[in-house]
């Protein structure tokens, strides 16, 4: 019924995303006007023919390689990471019918971190790192959701608390791994990766996470209406003929894959997976068929802005989690105030 409003908002958001992308591409230590960058991009895609005289793209070669080999991959990855974390948060909230959880609060991020750190110590490739991180994340969801079952006490609060237990325990394991890691090589790369930075992102990271993003997002979008039904609880979902274990299983696997592969690239970036889903629900309502695309777009935009700030605000890189905390925590406080029913 709110279809036209939804479409308008989504188109607006995507337009904004493209504009911010160009602005971000032109910002940095070597800054340039967005129009020049646009022009260069035009040449790159081959849509505009070379005039034959002198510089093809309108950018000098150094600038050209910075924009296309350093900034562009980083921008793409930061948008994907934002979209992935936000979408997995929205989906976990839906299937666990609990608006208070997120990939970090469920322990998925910590589990994936343990897996990714293990992969770094073992010297595994990026693809292997994603797989091991995924297994760690999946184990963590399993543990967090088992505790309320074992205690025979299911409530929103209990799930949040067991997420805290699981992620606390996993953080200690991560600390042990850092302790035993070799100081010169492994430790520094674990620490660097865990702080949540896109600074080292290159084309190979883009290639590594795009398939995960495309496949999982498509599946989750196709199942988005079923997420509405699962959020009614097991009894109602079953009475509506939904194969709850199968559908929920697929959704949890996709969401955990999204979390794990973003964690294996950029470490744990807090708040995004909690705040962005709420923000998109505030904009468009609760229906997950709209929340899913909205969250993807909003998460991408949010993370792009944060990462652009991270690399431009000061001369040194600011870790992403610092910025997401600064923006996300007050935002969540505001959202709590707006939707008090969430904690009832």
């Amino acid at each position, binding site marked *: *019924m709110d279809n036209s409003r939804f479409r308008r908002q989504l188109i607006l958001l995507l337009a904004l995303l493209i504009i911010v992308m160009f602005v971000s591409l032109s910002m940095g230590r070597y800054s340039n006007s967005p129009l020049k960058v646009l022009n260069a991009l035009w040449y790159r895609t081959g849509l505009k023919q070379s005039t034959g005289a002198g510089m093809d793209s309108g950018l000098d070669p150094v600038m050209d390689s910075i924009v296309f080999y350093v900034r562009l991959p980083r921008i793409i990855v930061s948008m994907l990471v934002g979209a992935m974390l936000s979408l997995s948060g929205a989906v976990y909230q*839906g299937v666990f*019918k*609990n*608006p208070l959880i997120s990939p970090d609060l469920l322990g998925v991020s910590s589990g994936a971190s343990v897996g990714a750190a293990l992969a770094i110590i073992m010297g595994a490739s990026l693809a292997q790192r994603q797989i091991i991180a995924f297994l760690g994340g999946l184990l963590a969801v399993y543990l967090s959701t088992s505790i309320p079952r074992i205690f025979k006490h299911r409530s*929103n609060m209990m799930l949040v608390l067991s997420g805290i237990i699981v992620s606390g325990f996993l953080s200690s394991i991560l600390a042990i791994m850092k302790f035993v890691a070799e100081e010169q090589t492994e430790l520094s790369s674990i620490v660097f990766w865990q702080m949540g930075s896109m600074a080292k992102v290159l084309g190979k990271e883009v290639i590594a996470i795009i398939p995960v993003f495309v496949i999982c997002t498509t599946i989750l979008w*196709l*199942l*988005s*209406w*079923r997420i*509405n*039904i699962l*959020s*009614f*609880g097991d*009894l*109602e979902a*079953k*009475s*509506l*003929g*939904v*194969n709850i274990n199968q*559908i929920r299983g697929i959704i949890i696997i996709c969401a955990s894959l999204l979390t794990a592969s973003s964690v294996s690239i950029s470490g744990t970036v807090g708040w995004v997976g909690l705040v962005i889903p709420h923000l998109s*629900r505030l904009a468009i*309502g*609760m*229906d997950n*068929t709209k929340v899913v695309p909205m969250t993807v777009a909003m998460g991408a935009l949010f993370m792009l802005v944060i990462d652009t700030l991270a690399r431009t605000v000061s001369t040194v890189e600011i870790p992403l989690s610092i910025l997401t905390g600064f923006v996300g925590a007050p935002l969540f406080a505001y959202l709590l105030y707006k*939707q008090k*029913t969430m904690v009832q």
Partner: protein
Amino acid sequence: MQIKIEKISFSYNGFREIFHNISFEIASGEIISILGPNGIGKTTLLNCLAKLEPPTSGKIWLNGENMTAMGHRDVAKIIGYVPQSIVPSFDYNVLDYVVTGLAPWLGTFEKPKEEHYEEASKALQKVGIEYLKGKPYSRISAGELQLVSIARVIAQRTRFIFMDEPTAHLDFGNQLKVLNIIREMAEEGYGVVLTTHNPDQVLLLEGKVAVFDRKGQFYFGNWNEILSDELLKAIYGVNLKICEVEKVCRKACIAPGFNNKCTN
């Protein structure tokens, strides 16, 4: 269309037996009320009939087909379920909620389209609350919420409707409104099974009763053949009378006063 229940039993983990060897039948157009004291297993029985919980033993035949062998989706095309209370985790719009009734008729990866939303609107219209369709369901009253649930079952296009205490949490006016809707639905051909704590509702609905007394003994039959002062005493442990009340031209189930003035 009929559901045949054949000697079903239910126990938790093989220990605490809830009910034992129960058999009866439900046909289209019938109303069956399940009566019994608190915690005796009324809801468990209802859930077993709707394939929401598996009976420990016994069989349920849905139009001659073994229900245990049927998928949830196929059962959901025939049996609709109205839960006792909806505790919303997310504040969906009424129309978004009602349209989920069409879930068994849509493919797993399908989303509702314009026509499905229209069907959901029609279901709301049928129970007279189309004006609520854009409202978030936290903003409507308990009575309206019950009607929204009923609208969803109508959108589900089932032949049977099972309701767990459809009048709990409702004020007296809304209770009677819901009972009236139940009667109308039975007249339209739905088979309705409900649980209730109020024996007088059985006399208003007429139809059949399934009764658990306090010892867990099970009785089944037409309301006027089964319900008696003695059985009511066996269910609730207090004195209740079924009497003809001329002013309303029906039999009613009434509790005597506490002051022992009455000598009948």
